[in-house]
Every structure is written in C-alpha cells, then in structure tokens.
C-alpha cells in the first residue's frame, strides 16, 4: 500500500536526523546496563499501519472478528498495533541499523564519562602526591583526617543524589539539544578542566609539599560539584514546577481537547510532558467512529425523478419541471440534518440495547462460579464432586455464554479491533483472580479508555513536533505548535495564566445580620 512505503521511509529519515544531534545527561553513566530499557524510549520509529488496514478492509475485518462469537475459534483480531508481515521485515531493518544505535548512546556515554571523571578527580588529587613524592610531603595529622572524613561523606552524598536524580532511563529523545543539560555538561567540563589545570601547574610541577593544602583543594572541588548538582536540580527539575502557561490540546480528528498547566519550559520539553499526559487523559482514537454514515451524505447525489401526473401541456412542462426540480433539490438538501439526527438516535438506541444484553449476560455468567474456600473441603458431597479450576479454566468456562453478547456490543461501538477474544479471556481471568464484580469486568469495554490502555509498551512511539519557532525556545503567549503522528495530530495553543491580584477582606462573624426583604421603610 502506498501509505506504508511513504511513512516508513519518512520515519527512518527523521529518526536519523533526530539522533544525530542528541546529547545525554552526564549522569547517565550506566546506560550500558539499561540497554534493554532503551527500546522503551520514544525514538523507536515504528508505527504500524493499523488504521489504513481498518479503513480498506473494514468489512472483512468484521467478518474475521465475527467468528469467535459464534464458533469460538481462536482468532487474533486486527488490533491497532498489530504488525503485518512486510512491516515485520522493515521493522527488523530499522532496529538493527547500527548508526541509529551508536548515535543514541553517544550522548549518555559522553555524560557518563564526564561524570565519572569528575568524581574520580578529587581522589586523584589526593592520591597523586602520595604516589609520586611521598617522602617530601609534610606530615599532616588531625586536620587532614578531619578533611578526609568530610571528603568521604560529601562524595557519598554526591553519589547517592546522582543516582537518585539523574540515573533514570530517559523516556524521550528530543529533536534538538536540551539547552540546560548541555549548559551543565559544559560547566562541569570547564570546571574540572580548570581545576586540573591549576593542579597541574601549581602542584604537580613544583611538587608542592603542603599536603593539607592539597586536601583542602580537593575538598573544595567536591563542594563545588555539590553546588553544580544543586544548580542542575534547580534548572532541570524545579524551575518548571510553578505553573505559568495553559496549553490547550486539541486532537484534529475527533476534536477531543484538554487543558493543561505547565511551567516555564522549552517547546520540546513541554511537548514531551504533554505527550505523557496525552496517553493518560485522551480517549483512544478510534478511526471507525469518525465519519457520518455515507447514506446520509450521499443522498444529495441521487437522481431526482419528476413525474407529471397532470394534463399534457408541453410548454408548461419544461419550466414547471425545472422549477420543481430545483425546489425539491433545495428542500432535499435540507433534510440531511434530520436524517443525521434520526440515524444518531437509532445508533444510540441500538448500542444501549446491546449494552443491556451484555450486562445481563455477564452478570449471569458470573453467577456460575464462586471462589473455592479451602476449609470447606468436606462439604462437597460424593454425589456431586466439584472440580477445582484455576482462574484460566474458570474464565474459559464462563466465557462461552457471554461471548456472543460481548461480540455484538463491541461491533456496535466499533471497538472490535481493540479487543480480541484472547484479550477478553485474559481480562476475565484477571478479574476472576481478583474477585471483581461483573461491573468491574465490564468497565474496560463500556467506555473507551485512555490510549495507554491499548498500548503495547514494549515499543516506542514516533511523534513529530511541528513548530514555526525553534523548538528550544521558551513557551510564550500565542504560540501554536503541533505534534503529528501518522493519521492525526495534536494542535497545541499556549496562553499564559492570568496574573492573580489577591486582595483581602476581613469579615467579623458578628457582622452577619439579616433583615426581611421589604420595600424601604422610613420612620417619621
């Protein structure tokens, strides 16, 4: 299909350009350990053509899904994120391409090396004089030992806070430099380099003998590293916590919209944060629910026949006919909204009827099983031995009576592509294990959940940030940018939160007095 070839090429290209200019946080030094977690980040470019498949083969998809309702053969339904065969091969090509992987790890590797270097430096400052000119060093008693202790603890604190704050697998790859991170990396590099420079010129060259001074110098380096970490904390984590802007996010296909409050962020960081919220808050995009039924829209095109039942008057016929045709056509165009209204009412009625049938069927099915208590082993009589089942078998046992009602309901709400028979049985097993009621079992199906629910989280998601301004610029009033995916996009508008002028008014509780509402009264 045309769709597949164009978008897969596009995604490969864009991911390459994205990763070429990335830099990682300097604290991500254990990146090599978390290699498997890297597939979770958002740079992996796979988006499968679930949507075009549905549109082109929608009826055939329905037939395929119908089977499991009637004959209970196991068929994996066409879920949105399923992969067809040709995509599978292309998928392997993309994932195995080495430039992508190398470039992605360049940034974190650089940051990790720099961080390690910075941490090892104070120890090197202490160790080098001892190794090289131990004999000529002045003996340094208690003050040095005090400094050793403080140095050790500060290094420990630095290690722990680095682990807590920065050693997290990144969840997104940004299209351009993350300005603050680069700033901090450069600062650390400059800092450590200047310390080494001073050390090399003033200590190593002349073989300085004042060891206490050297230890104090190393301690000051660790102090400065702690302050840099404080700066990193403020810039990366704290500054954007105070809300300053309100972002309105609208999905282009079905108009679902939300408002979010963010702080001072660059456009790309705001986009990443926004996408996290998108997966939580927006109902899943169902392409099958979009269009007006063709029967309503295409009524205008149908031919209009005029029958002349009156007397045969040739001159009047033509003008009369054309006038009636125009009048009737204009009147006919007006009727499409009533048809739409009735069609909507009909669809809603059908959905409600099927929902009622489903709820009844599920409630009835759940009455067939109950939890087996271990202490009532002797209760079951020898005449009716009850076989003890595990949750999977119990789920399969009670699935059959509700299968048909479930399938009809899913078809009515166009959700059949999101729930295959296998997934329904799995969910049923999950609910039975946790002693859920039928209503709890049904909540997954009765309302379209957030997109995250239907997501296969082992693969990343490719989004394109479309903006008229450079994406590292800070958010400003009136900015508009959009996050594009293959078949829909999210348009984001930025408005600043209003400045709040809070006044104060003190009310004495004794001042609450009331009078009957009457006309004005004057005493004379």
């Amino acid at each position: 299909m045309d769709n597949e070839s164009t978008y897969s090429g596009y995604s490969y290209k864009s991911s390459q350009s994205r990763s070429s200019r990335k830099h990682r946080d300097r604290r991500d030094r254990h990146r090599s350990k978390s290699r498997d977690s890297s597939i979770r980040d958002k740079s992996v470019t796979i988006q499968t053509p679930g949507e075009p498949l549905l549109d082109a083969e929608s009826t055939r998809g329905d037939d395929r899904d119908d089977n499991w309702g009637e004959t209970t053969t196991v068929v994996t339904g066409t879920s949105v994120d399923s992969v067809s065969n040709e995509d599978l091969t292309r998928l392997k090509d993309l994932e195995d391409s080495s430039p992508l992987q190398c470039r992605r790890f360049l940034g974190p590797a650089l940051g990790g090396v720099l961080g390690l270097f910075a941490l090892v430096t104070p120890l090197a400052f202490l160790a080098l004089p001892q190794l090289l000119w131990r004999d000529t060093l002045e003996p340094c008693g208690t003050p040095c030992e005090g400094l050793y202790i403080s140095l050790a603890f500060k290094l420990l604190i630095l290690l722990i806070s680095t682990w807590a704050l920065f050693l997290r697998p990144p969840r997104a790859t940004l299209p351009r430099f993350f300005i603050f991170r680069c700033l901090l990396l450069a600062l650390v590099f400059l800092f450590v380099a200047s310390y080494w420079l001073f050390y090399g010129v003033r200590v190593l060259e002349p073989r300085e003998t004042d060891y206490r001074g050297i230890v104090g110098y190393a301690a000051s380096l660790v102090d400065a590293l702690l302050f840099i970490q404080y700066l990193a904390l403020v810039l990366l984590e704290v500054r954007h916590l105070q809300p300053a802007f309100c972002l309105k996010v609208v999905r282009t296909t079905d108009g679902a919209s939300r408002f979010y409050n963010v702080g001072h962020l660059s456009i790309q960081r705001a986009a990443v944060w926004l996408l996290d919220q998108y997966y939580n808050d927006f109902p899943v995009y169902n392409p099958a629910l979009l269009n007006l039924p063709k029967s309503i829209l295409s009524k205008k095109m149908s031919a209009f026949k005029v029958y002349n039942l009156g007397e045969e008057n040739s001159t009047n016929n033509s003008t009369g006919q054309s006038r009636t045709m125009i009048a009737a056509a204009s009147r006919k165009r007006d009727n499409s909204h009533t048809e739409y209204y009735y069609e909507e009412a009909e669809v809603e009625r059908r959905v409600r009827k099927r929902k009622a049938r489903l709820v009844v069927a599920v409630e009835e099915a759940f009455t067939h099983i109950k939890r087996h208590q271990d202490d009532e082993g002797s209760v079951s009589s020898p005449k009716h031995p009850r076989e003890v089942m595990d949750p999977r078998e119990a789920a399969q046992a009670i699935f059959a009576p509700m299968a048909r009602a479930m399938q009809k309901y899913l078809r009515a709400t166009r959700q059949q592509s999101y729930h295959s028979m296998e997934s329904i049985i799995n969910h049923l097993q999950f609910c039975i294990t946790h002693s859920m009621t039928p209503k709890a079992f049904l909540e997954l199906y009765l309302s379209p959940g957030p997109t995250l629910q239907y997501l296969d989280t082992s693969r990343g998601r490719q989004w394109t940030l479309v903006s008229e301004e450079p994406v590292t610029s800070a958010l400003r009033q009136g900015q508009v940018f959009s996050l594009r995916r293959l078949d829909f996009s999210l348009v984001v508008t930025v408005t600043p939160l209003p400045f709040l002028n809070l006044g104060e008014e003190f009310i004495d509780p004794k001042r609450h007095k009331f009078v009957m509402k009457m006309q004005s009264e004057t005493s004379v």
Partner: protein
Amino acid sequence: MTFSNVPSLQRIEIKKLRQGDNLILGFSIGGGIDQDPGQNPFSDDKADKGIYVTRITPGGPAETADLRMGDKIMQVNGYDMTMMTHDQARKRLTKKNEDVVRLLVTRKSLEEAVKNSMGGYQRQ
C-alpha cells in the same frame, strides 16, 4: 355569614412629640409610587402603591392615637397620599411647622366584619 376583610376608614389624630431637635410621630411608613408594591406584606392587592404603616414605636404618639401596623394612609391633613412617592410622603408627614397631623387611614379589620354580621344575626 361571610368573613371578608371589609376595610374600615379611621380618622386618627397624632400629636407630634418633640425629641431633641425633631418632631417625631412614632411610626414608620413604607410604599410609594416609586417603590416595588410586591414587597408590601400588608396590602391585599399587590399592585397597591399606597403608603402603609409598617411599624409602630411602642409608647410613641402614634400608638397612643391608636394607629395600627398595616394601616394604609389615605390622607394627611387633607392632602391625598395615594399617589405619592416615598420621599414626598415622608416630607408631608414631617413638616416642621405642623404640630398635629390628622390622618385618614383604612384598616383591614376582620373582627369588625364578624361583629357586624354576628350582630345582624343576633338581631334576627
């Protein structure tokens, strides 16, 4: 026997009392053609924009002259009060050169109606 609120006309003469710098009558008025007649609790017809007595100061000259709460003031010293604004009515009652005001008031009195009808019955 019918119980109806037959309005009765009363002539009431109030001597003003001097209190400090003012001459007071000892009651409060409400109503007027510039007021909202719907908020008048004393009137029968809620479109009546006349001047009504809303409060009587206990022990004041109005109480001793037998003015009652709910009376509608029709005339003050001969001047008609039925088509007056609230402020005009107040001015008319508080003229500094008058010591005595003679009011013509109507009063809804249920007891009078019952007494009349009872008396009539008994006479028969």
